[in-house]
C-alpha cells in the first residue's frame, strides 16, 4: 500500500499538540469545505482532511499511526511490520482509507469472545438521469475487510451490481441489507447505505424530481408559435410553442420529470437563437425588419 502522511495533509509537524491538530483541521476544513470552496478538488481534499483528522484527532489511533510512520514519506510504498499493532485495538476502523487498510489485519481480528454486528458502510453511487427514468443496474466497488479465519483479515475490493429503482432522486439513500462490514463472533453483517448522486449532464439540470432543459427555438417559432420536436429524458415529444414567446419563457410538462412517488415536472426553458447575418440574403432580411418593424427593445 501507499503511505499517507496525515501530518502533511493537515499542514502540521509530528510534534503538534492535540489542540494544534484540532485548530489545523478546523482551518483546513473551512478552507476546502465543498459548500464554500471554489477549489476544483474541494470534495477530494475534504475527504483527505477528514481521513487525516479521524486518525490524528484520536490519541490512540495517532499513537499507532506514529509507531508505524517514522521515516516514511507520502506516496512511498509501505508494508507494516508483523505484529506492529499488538498494543492497539481499533474495532471501528472501517473507512475506505489507508488507516483502515492497516488495521484490517490487526484491530478487527482481536474481537474474539463476544458477538457484535458489523458496522454499516456509507458510500455513494453515481447514475445518469436516464437511469432514474427507467431504472438500471450500476456497479459500485468498495474496499472492505474480509475475514480469513481467526485473527486474519485483509482489505479486499468488493464489487456489487446494484439495481437502481426507477424514480430515484438526488440525495436519496438505498439500503442494501447485509452488505456492510462482517459481524464478529457469529453476529450478522452491517448494512450498506448508498447515496444516489447524478452525473452532470449538459442537457439537463435537476431540482429534486423536477428536470430543467433549455430548448433552442428560432425567432419565428418564438414570435409566431408552432409545434417543435424536443428530445427529453423520456423520449422526443412534440411541444407547442405559444406565439409571442421570449427567451427564458418556461413551459411546464406536468409529470414528465423524474417518475418518483410524486412525479416531478419537466420545465422547458425557451432560448431564442438568432440566425447569423452572414449572407447578403440574411442581412437583407434583418435590414427589412429594422426598417419595417420599428422595434426598439430598450424603449418597449
Amino acid at each position, binding site marked *: 500500500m501507499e503511505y499517507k502522511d496525515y501530518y502533511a495533509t493537515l499542514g502540521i509537524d509530528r510534534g503538534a499538540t492535540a489542540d494544534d491538530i484540532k485548530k489545523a483541521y478546523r482551518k483546513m476544513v473551512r478552507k476546502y469545505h465543498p459548500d464554500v470552496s471554489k477549489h476544483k478538488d474541494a470534495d477530494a481534499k475534504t475527504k483527505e482532511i477528514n481521513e487525516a483528522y479521524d486518525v490524528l484527532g484520536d490519541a490512540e489511533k495517532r499513537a499507532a499511526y506514529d509507531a508505524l510512520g517514522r521515516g516514511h514519506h507520502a506516496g512511498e510504498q509501505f508494508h507494516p511490520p508483523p505484529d506492529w499493532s499488538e498494543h492497539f485495538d481499533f474495532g471501528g476502523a472501517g473507512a475506505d482509507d489507508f488507516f483502515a487498510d492497516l488495521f484490517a489485519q490487526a484491530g478487527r481480528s482481536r474481537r474474539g469472545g463476544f458477538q457484535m454486528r458489523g458496522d454499516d458502510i456509507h458510500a455513494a453511487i453515481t447514475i445518469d438521469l436516464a437511469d432514474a427514468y427507467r431504472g438500471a443496474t450500476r456497479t459500485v466497488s468498495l474496499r472492505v475487510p474480509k475475514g480469513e479465519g481467526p485473527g486474519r483479515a485483509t482489505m479486499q*475490493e468488493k464489487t456489487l451490481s446494484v*439495481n437502481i429503482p426507477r424514480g430515484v432522486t438526488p*440525495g436519496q439513500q438505498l*439500503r442494501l441489507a447485509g452488505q456492510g462490514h462482517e459481524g464478529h463472533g457469529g453476529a450478522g453483517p*452491517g448494512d*450498506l447505505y448508498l447515496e444516489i448522486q447524478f452525473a452532470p449532464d449538459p442537457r439537463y439540470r435537476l431540482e429534486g424530481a423536477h428536470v430543467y432543459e433549455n430548448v433552442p427555438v428560432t425567432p419565428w417559432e418564438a414570435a409566431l408559435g408552432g409545434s417543435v420536436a424536443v428530445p427529453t429524458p423520456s423520449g422526443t415529444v412534440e411541444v407547442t410553442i405559444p406565439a409571442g414567446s421570449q427567451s427564458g419563457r418556461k413551459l411546464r410538462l406536468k409529470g414528465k420529470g423524474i417518475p418518483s412517488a410524486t412525479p416531478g415536472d419537466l420545465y422547458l426553458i425557451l432560448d431564442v437563437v438568432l440566425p447569423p447575418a452572414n449572407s447578403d440574403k440574411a442581412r437583407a432580411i434583418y435590414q427589412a425588419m429594422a426598417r419595417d418593424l420599428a422595434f426598439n427593445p430598450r424603449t418597449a
Partner: protein
Amino acid sequence: MFANQIVTGVLIDDVALDMEELARACQVEPDWVVRHVQAGVLGEVTLQTAALRFRSTDLARARRLLELERHFDANEELAALVIDLADEVRRLRARLHALGIRDT
C-alpha cells in the same frame, strides 16, 4: 476480490428507518437520536419515540450533525444552524443552476 453480486436495495424513503436503525447507521446510541429529535433539529418532533421514522434526508442530516458536533465541539443547535445555512446555499445554487444561471 469478492465475486460480483447483483443486489437489490430498498429506498429508505419507501420503508423509513426506525430510531434503532438510524442510531446504528450513525454509530451513536439511540439517546443521541432522541435528544436531537426533542431539540427539534432532526426528524419530526414527537413524544412517541417508538413511532419515529426517518428518511434519506434525516440520515444525511444526522451524519452531518454528528460530524460538526464531534469535529467542532458544536452543540446541536449550532450544528443544526450551520447545516440549515449550508442547505439553503445548496438549494439556491441548485435553483440558479436549474434556471441556467452560472454561480460565479
